């Protein structure tokens, strides 16, 4: 094995830059794409100024709700600064939670709780203001309901003394538990609702899986380069049959690529804050599947440029089919067999067993034990 490694190192030294490029491509491409997507997403958020004049829990909760709203980037500032930035068109609009907000809500007053500013170029003022109005209405509605409940309690059950604060707190608890404002969308006649999923623009490991297909296929061009008809007779007179030579080299590539897979886990944690949740066995079985597939595919080609073309086409095909890059839930719900033919399904679902791996290893074993036309293969 050490001698095969030494021969492999001679090959690797000759192509160190392409080798490193394809080994690092899945890591670097994923980090760059995810960060670019995040940057674009951040830049596309509507800049909104928020002035909180009051230091009460109600005002803080309203500010927090506004900040958590997707597609809005909130700058907390002073009223003068907000107006200045609005004039300079650095802000799309500005909202001031006025002093006395909680008192007014408690009193049931719905007028002038929040003051808003907009400019002649405020393109998102209407939806943002309506969204903030809905939060305020939620607070005022809750307050009005608390007064009503208290009045009913005083009239019909005087022994049970509910305070306004208790009713409001209970109301918030019920809202959190019941997810009253949560909405799911389903297509008509669909069998069941989708489970709740966090919406992400790009799936880190899905992207990585697709880039790994491409880099593995292109790294396995060594099979075509070294599977030369003229060289095969030499293996009759050396310590390794050419099949053993190929198997041992595939093993070396598997070790090398798996080390870079582990580097991907660490890199994604460092640069993309991905949790260390990746199961090593799932990663290893995916790597074995990729390498077995790339090896067997390369064996089918004599022309290296045809192999490159097929590699790009296959990557594109599996990238789309797998749903790793573009969600295809609609398709897989209609055509469930797509999940079985999707080689990335096991990896993306976190399973360490895959039909593809079993089939590819079986074909690999068949290739290894098959007797060649020449008697010199073993």
């Amino acid at each position, binding site marked *: 094995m050490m001698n095969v490694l*030494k021969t492999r190192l001679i090959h690797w030294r000759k192509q160190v830059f392409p080798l490193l490029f394809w080994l690092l491509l899945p890591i670097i491409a994923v980090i760059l794409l995810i960060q670019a997507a995040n940057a674009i997403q951040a830049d596309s958020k509507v800049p909104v100024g928020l002035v909180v004049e009051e230091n009460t829990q109600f005002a803080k909760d309203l500010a927090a709700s506004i900040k958590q709203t997707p597609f809005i980037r909130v700058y907390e500032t002073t009223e003068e600064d907000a107006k200045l930035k609005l004039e300079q068109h650095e802000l799309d609009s500005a909202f001031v939670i006025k002093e006395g907000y909680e008192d007014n809500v408690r009193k049931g007053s719905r007028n002038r709780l929040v003051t808003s500013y907009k400019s002649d170029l405020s393109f998102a003022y209407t939806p943002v203001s309506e969204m903030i109005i809905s939060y305020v209405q939620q607070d005022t509605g809750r307050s009005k309901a608390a007064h009503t409940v208290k009045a009913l309690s005083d009239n019909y059950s005087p022994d049970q003394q509910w305070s306004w604060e208790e009713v409001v707190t209970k109301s918030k608890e019920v809202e959190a538990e019941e997810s009253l404002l949560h909405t799911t969308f389903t297509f008509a006649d669909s069998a069941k609702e989708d489970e709740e999923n966090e919406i992400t623009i790009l799936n880190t490991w899905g992207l990585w899986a697709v880039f790994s297909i491409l880099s593995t296929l292109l790294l396995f061009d060594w099979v075509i380069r070294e599977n030369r008809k*003229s060289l095969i*007779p*030499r293996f009759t*007179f*050396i310590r390794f049959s050419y099949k053993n*030579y190929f198997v041992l080299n595939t093993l070396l590539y598997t070790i090398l690529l798996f080390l870079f897979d582990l580097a991907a886990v660490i890199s994604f944690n460092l640069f993309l804050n991905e949790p260390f949740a990746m199961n090593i066995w799932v990663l290893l079985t995916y790597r074995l599947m990729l390498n077995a597939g790339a090896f067997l595919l390369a064996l089918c080609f004599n022309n290296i440029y045809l192999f490159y073309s097929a590699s790009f086409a296959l990557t594109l095909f599996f990238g789309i089919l797998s749903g790793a890059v573009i969600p295809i839930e609609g398709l897989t719900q209609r055509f469930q067999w797509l999940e079985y033919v999707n080689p990335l399904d096991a990896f993306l679902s976190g399973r360490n067993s895959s039909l593809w791996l079993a089939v590819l290893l079986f074909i690999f074993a068949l290739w290894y034990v098959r007797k060649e036309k020449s*008697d*010199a293969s073993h």
Partner: protein
Amino acid sequence: MLHINNLSKKFGKKPILQSISFSVRQGEIIGLVGENGAGKSTLLNILATIQKPSDGNISLNELTYEKDRKDIRKQIGFVPQDIAIWDEFTVEENMIFFEKLAWRRKDKSELKQLCLDMELNKWGEPVKRLSGGMKRKLNLAISLIHDPELLLLDEPTVGIDLKSRKEIGNYLKRQAFHQKKLIIYTSHDMDEINNLCDRVICIGDDPFYKNLLMDMGKDVISF
């Protein structure tokens, strides 16, 4: 000593080689000639264990081809007609690459000396910059890394200049004379065969080669 006894080879029903018997002594160079398609390369491939005979026995120093195939392969140096080297490597890297996979270990100085013995003095040169003759020499040198006793060469000098041809011929003569190697050699160049070979085996029905070699005064066995 190599013994070939009553060897035949058929592809399907078509006979290629029929009842070939001869022996090769230590230090002897045997030429293998015949028209294209006569079966020279097939015989060489059978002697190299790359193909199996349909009938007959072969033995090398008491080892039989049927039973001791693996041990016999350790004693064979096969020089294929196609140049089987890594074009992207230097001469040194090619020698080291095949030494790592060879049955017998050699250090770098021994490998370099092997190249120098056949006047291949471009140790650090990339193969793609070598002349055809130099590539042929490297092709031969790689086959000799494990010090084989039986050397089988399939047209090793085809398409190269006269100087390189002479250098390869001289090297083979030294190997046979000093190292007592058994050498079997195919070529279409009758001058080369005449100068280099002790005996000639003529394969095929065409009497052209046999008559030509007998005119040259060669000891010819024909099948």
